């Protein structure tokens, strides 16, 4: 197969492709074979205690796009990122992600509290599957960016949560990804570090072929992203240019909270 350069050349496969994707959770953990049997059944909660976190998701991200994923809590946003990262396997349908992936989910995963910053950087690098030599080369830059000072040689167990998050962020963003998956990490540490991390993310966004950004921060989503999809109940309910989808979503939410408020007041008055 011919290796083409990026920029959405026609015919080259897209960096991200989800087709007919469904992720089902079994609330009583049963056998896998049974999971497939219930595919045709409707409803998010079926009678057998199963639950579709994502359902019938068709989603294609072309090179150069950055997509915000918005929606209320429990809509399936994080599940979607986990599927894209290869952490969760879909119960049905197809997922294809091409190229190097960087995931910024929660920070500091994989750290061993008894190891120091350097050792933890190497450990997480191994979890991520980064070749050892490459990781060794990156260590100084990672430690520098995290700004740990004399704590770099101390065990991570002695770190404050901010320091831990900073180190986690530095490790996670040290790769040069083709596909960047973000889950609300822009608010890490103190004000100075937030600024620093923001520019690092923007830099990564410039280089990555495709970005998927899960957030509740609608304003930053509107400014960062070219496209937005709205998830609700595990399904995509809106898909389009970021500004349009986000403003429609804002209006919908405002209306919803107004009705909720009204019915709440009514209920209280009724008591």
């Amino acid at each position: 197969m011919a290796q083409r350069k990026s920029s959405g050349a026609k015919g080259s496969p897209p960096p991200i492709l989800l087709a007919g994707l469904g992720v089902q959770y079994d609330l009583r953990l049963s056998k896998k074979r049974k999971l497939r049997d219930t595919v045709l059944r409707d409803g998010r909660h079926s009678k057998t205690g199963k639950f579709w976190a994502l359902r019938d998701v068709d989603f294609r991200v072309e090179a150069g796009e950055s997509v915000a994923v918005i929606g209320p809590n429990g809509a399936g946003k994080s599940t979607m990122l986990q599927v894209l990262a290869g952490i969760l396997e879909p119960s049905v349908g197809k997922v294809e992600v091409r190229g190097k992936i960087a995931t910024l989910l929660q920070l500091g995963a994989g750290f061993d509290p008894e190891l120091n910053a350097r050792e933890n950087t190497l450990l997480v690098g191994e979890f991520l599957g980064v070749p050892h030599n490459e990781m060794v080369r990156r260590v100084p830059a990672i430690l520098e960016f995290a700004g740990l000072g004399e704590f770099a040689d101390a065990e991570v167990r002695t770190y404050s949560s901010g320091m831990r998050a900073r180190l986690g962020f530095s490790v996670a963003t040290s790769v040069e990804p083709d596909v960047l998956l973000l889950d609300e990490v822009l608010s890490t540490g103190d004000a100075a570090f937030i600024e620093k991390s923001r520019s690092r993310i923007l830099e990564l966004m410039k280089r990555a072929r495709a970005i998927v950004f899960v957030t509740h921060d609608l304003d930053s989503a509107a400014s960062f992203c070219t496209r937005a999809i709205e998830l609700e109940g595990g399904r995509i309910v809106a898909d389009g240019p970021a500004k349009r989808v986000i403003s429609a979503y804002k209006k919908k939410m405002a209306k919803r909270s107004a009705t909720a408020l009204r019915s709440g007041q009514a209920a209280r008055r009724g008591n």
Partner: protein
Amino acid sequence: MTTHSTDLTVGRPRRGSIGSIFETVAALIERRRLVWYLTISEVRNKGTNSLLGNVWWFLDPALQLFVYFLLVNVLFHRSQPAILLFLGSAILPWKWFTTALTTGVTAVRGREQVMRQIAFPHIVLPAASVLASVGNFLFALVPLGALYLIYPDRLTPWALAVFPVAIVQFLWTIPAVITLSALAVFFRDISNFIPHGLRIWFYLSPALFPIETLRAIGERHPWFGVLVNANPFTWIFTGYRDALYNGRAPDWVPLGILALASIPAILLSIYFFRRVSPLFVKVL
């Protein structure tokens, strides 16, 4: 401008049974450095945060030996020549096995966080746990070796045969830990059951008494004799005892059969692990 790769990183098609075993083993080899890091960190963590630190590696087996010595020698008045060596040659390897199982139960379950954040082959977790448990055995060799200061005439070149016997034990520890680490994700009760199950197993094995005691019962109740022969630790303990205590060659035939039989067990456990591992993140 960097050229971007278009290799598929997520969404490779699922393989059949042989393929998935092969794939899992390949992943283990590819991630050997991760396995090693996890092993080292598990070994290191044992010593930290306690006053005596790494001394516990030696003290633990020594104290356990002492407890059983009190029980058998003082309370039960069982006289056996070179009693400490007799007990130690079985108790210390057994301690390795129990530690491997009890820590193996949490090998996957305890790594919930990183499993939710990073995609990596989960098999590295039980693999590291098994390897870390070997440390137990190696450190226990020190108090065991010290016993020869008390019984110098028991030391023969056959003592070196502990290593092949230990390999047989290791080969059976692998499938046991892999299977338990996966099951424990779904059934938390396993960690409650394991200590009791292990204790029963221990008393049905020739550890605190010679094999002849069990054989005598087996003669009266044939089913018990079958049980004794089917128990891998009958042969493993006897092997250790031949090497360390009796100063003679272990009986290689049953040990060889055990070693061969471990291969399908290991492959099966890997297959089982691979099949259920996609569920880990969902259940945890």
